[in-house]
């Protein structure tokens, strides 16, 4: 028999069952079932009895090789078929099997909730726990705070940040002294420790100061640029004499009038609130300014111009400037103010009225009749004591 010939049908094989008719495509499996019951024993027996030794003898005859050249047929090993198999198998290097615990832990780690917890929850918890643990003790908290403070002080007190000089620009000596006195810290001091906003507000709250700008310059200089209020008018308020600026804001108290003879005086109820109007009236009255003693606010609504000799020009509540100009025009044309007149009343713009002085009145009415005021139909007032 050679390898190239067709395989011989082994003797043990039962003859083929006779071909049956094919009822459907389904095989009649009864033959299979019957056979399955029967040959199990014989098949198992053959599996063990068909030992490799026999197989090799068969093969060697097949290959026409002398049997003596073979390695010794391992007949003795036939019995130990299964045990040899298992014992040999134990020598094989294997993958390391995870222990039951390791396997379960790995599976737990792969569970979605656990994975999310491990990725996000655990780090947050760890950081929180460590921080909380450190900060739980008061001593440790104090030590940490002390260290932070020390570090902060070291940085703040570096020479780069020290202010050694306070420079004040644009302030009069008394204001500069006041500013110096308001300085919240003694120099030299770190610029971080100066409350610049508070210092600025304190300076700006002073009446004499209009605006102030604070700036820490390089070289450790704190510059305060002050713009002072300019006093433009004196306000007699009861017994005191206050200086006001053009907006009516108080600048300072004046002890005596003679100290500032250049400033006009205003008085009366609500005078300080109407300083711009007063300034406009005074500037309109510049031609007669030598005769003007001051302005008086009457009833917190209109102004009187007080002239020397306690004479008055009563101005209307509305449009006082034209009245002043009219008075000046009258003075220019008729030399009104050098005459004996007690008051000129412009309160009614249609009918200005003069009141004569006592001497003029006596000359006009020697009988001592009541004084009258003349008012012509036109706007030109009549001066009667000519």
């Amino acid at each position: 028999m050679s390898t190239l010939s067709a395989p011989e049908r082994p003797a043990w094989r039962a003859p083929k069952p006779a071909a049956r008719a094919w009822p459907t495509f389904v095989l009649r499996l009864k033959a299979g079932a019957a056979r399955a019951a029967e040959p199990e024993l014989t098949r198992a027996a053959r599996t063990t009895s068909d030992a490799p030794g026999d197989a090799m003898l068969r093969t060697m005859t097949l290959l026409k090789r002398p049997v003596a050249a073979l390695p010794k047929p391992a007949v003795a090993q036939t019995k130990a078929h299964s045990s040899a198999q298992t014992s040999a198998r134990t020598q094989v290097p294997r993958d390391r099997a995870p222990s039951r615990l390791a396997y379960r832990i790995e599976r737990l780690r792969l569970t979605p909730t656990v994975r999310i917890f491990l990725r996000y929850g655990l780090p947050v918890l760890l950081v929180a726990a460590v921080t909380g643990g450190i900060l739980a003790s008061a001593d440790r908290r104090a030590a940490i705070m002390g260290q932070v403070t020390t570090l902060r002080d070291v940085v703040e007190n570096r020479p780069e940040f020290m202010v050694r000089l306070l420079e004040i620009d644009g302030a009069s000596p008394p204001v500069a002294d006041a500013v110096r006195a308001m300085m919240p810290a003694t120099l030299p001091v770190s610029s971080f420790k100066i409350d610049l906003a508070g210092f600025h507000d304190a300076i700006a709250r002073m009446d004499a100061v209009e605006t102030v700008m604070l700036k820490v310059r390089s070289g450790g200089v704190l510059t305060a640029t002050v713009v002072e209020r300019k006093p433009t008018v004196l306000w007699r308020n009861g017994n005191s004499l206050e200086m006001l600026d053009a907006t009516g804001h108080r600048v300072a108290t004046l002890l005596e009038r003679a100290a500032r003879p250049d400033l006009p005086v205003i008085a009366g109820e609500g005078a300080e609130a109407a300083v711009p109007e007063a300034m406009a009236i005074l500037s309109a009255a510049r031609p007669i300014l030598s005769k003007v003693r001051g302005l008086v606010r009457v009833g917190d609504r209109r102004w009187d111009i007080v002239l020397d000799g306690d004479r008055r020009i009563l101005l209307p509540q509305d449009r006082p400037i034209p009245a002043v100009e009219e008075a000046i025009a009258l003075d220019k044309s008729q030399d009104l103010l050098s005459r004996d007149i007690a008051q000129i009343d412009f309160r009614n713009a249609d009918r200005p009225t003069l009141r004569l002085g006592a001497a003029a009145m006596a000359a006009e009415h020697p009988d001592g009749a009541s004084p009258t005021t003349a008012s012509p139909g036109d706007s030109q007032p009549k001066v009667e004591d000519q």
Partner: protein
Amino acid sequence: MTDLYQMQRAMRNMRRAAMQRGVVAILDVGTSKVACLVLRFDGEAPPREDGLGSMAGQSQFRVIGAATTQSRGVRFGEIDAIPETERAIRTAVQAAQKMADVRVDHVIACLSGARPKSYGLAGEITLAQGRASEGDVGRVLAACDVPDFGEGREVLHAHPVNFAIDHRSGLSDPRGHVGNRLAADMHLVTIDMTALQNLLYCIKRCDLELAGIASSAYVSGVAALVEDEQELGSACIDMGGGATGLSIFIKKHMIFTDAVRLGGEHVTADIAKGLRVSTANAERIKTMHGGVYATGMDDREMIEIGGDSGDWEHDRRLVSRAELIGIMRPRVEEILEETRAMLDAAGFDQLPSQQIVLTGGASLIPGLDGLAARILGQSVRLGRPLRVQGLPQAATGAAFSSAVGLCLFAAHPQDEWWDFEIPAERYPARSLRRAVRWFKDNW
């Protein structure tokens, strides 16, 4: 029978739950290796313009993890040492999980040994309405006369393979057909209960839930046979490590299965005994130099058989490849002859097409197809499993056909008897009586 019905139904529900969760593991516990694949299901792929599903409808899942480890404690495809097998399963599952980076809870397993037996069952009922309904299908399946399996046997598969209404046979779906008599043929596979219970126990010890179980020969056929072969009739021979399974398909149904308790490990054991080397060495020699056809060249090709006994002379032995082939060939012939006997017993020669497909790890011996053609018949080819998405290159060989077949089985399980509603008259009267008593007690 009802217990089995409930158990298989529970397994089907488990499989459905696993599909809904989207991740399921495939576990092939074989004699020489344990393979674990992790599948991710993400719904049906969008239909293509030409009406074909992409990848022949297999694109709804993707292999995202694969691992293989050497099997331990498995003999003849049955679990022999339970703790060892459990360790091997743990190793494979953990590695596959690690690759997939996802936890798997459901596993679909296959059994290669456990002495499967096929039964052809026939049942017949009269159609009351004159038209077959879904309930009638369940009734005719329930009417099949079940043979006596013997003690300790469990039903693994129960496929309805053929329906006939009156004189029209070969129907795949009888629902809606008009007729008076409905007959069904069912293919039933039983296995040893102890082997199944051992596998269940191992899987349970690994904290996994079994979502399905299949015969290894059947799923190898699903993976290795092309559609035409399944349709026209063919046999798939899954040559594993410890058992060689046979499954015969026609009209896309398995109609016969059987297994021989012989496989590649027996060839290895023969080499180990014949050359007096360790099993590991014999396995190496078999895979590197093995064959079944000796030529003159093989007489001159000397193989160092190695060894680590410490004896220099013993460890430096040389053997010609012809001698190696001389050892291997009789065992391979024996396996094929056993298979041939099974095919003859099943009446394979009656099939219209007699294609034979060899697959499994032991089918990788060079020259096997020629030898098989001499013993089994002319139309023999070597089969590789279907290509499925994401399968690593290392797992595309013939040794993985049952694993790949299990993937396909998981995606498209064939209708089994327990997928149909059990007819109402089969419910035990006791539960009805219990319901009545409950009403009496409470009102």
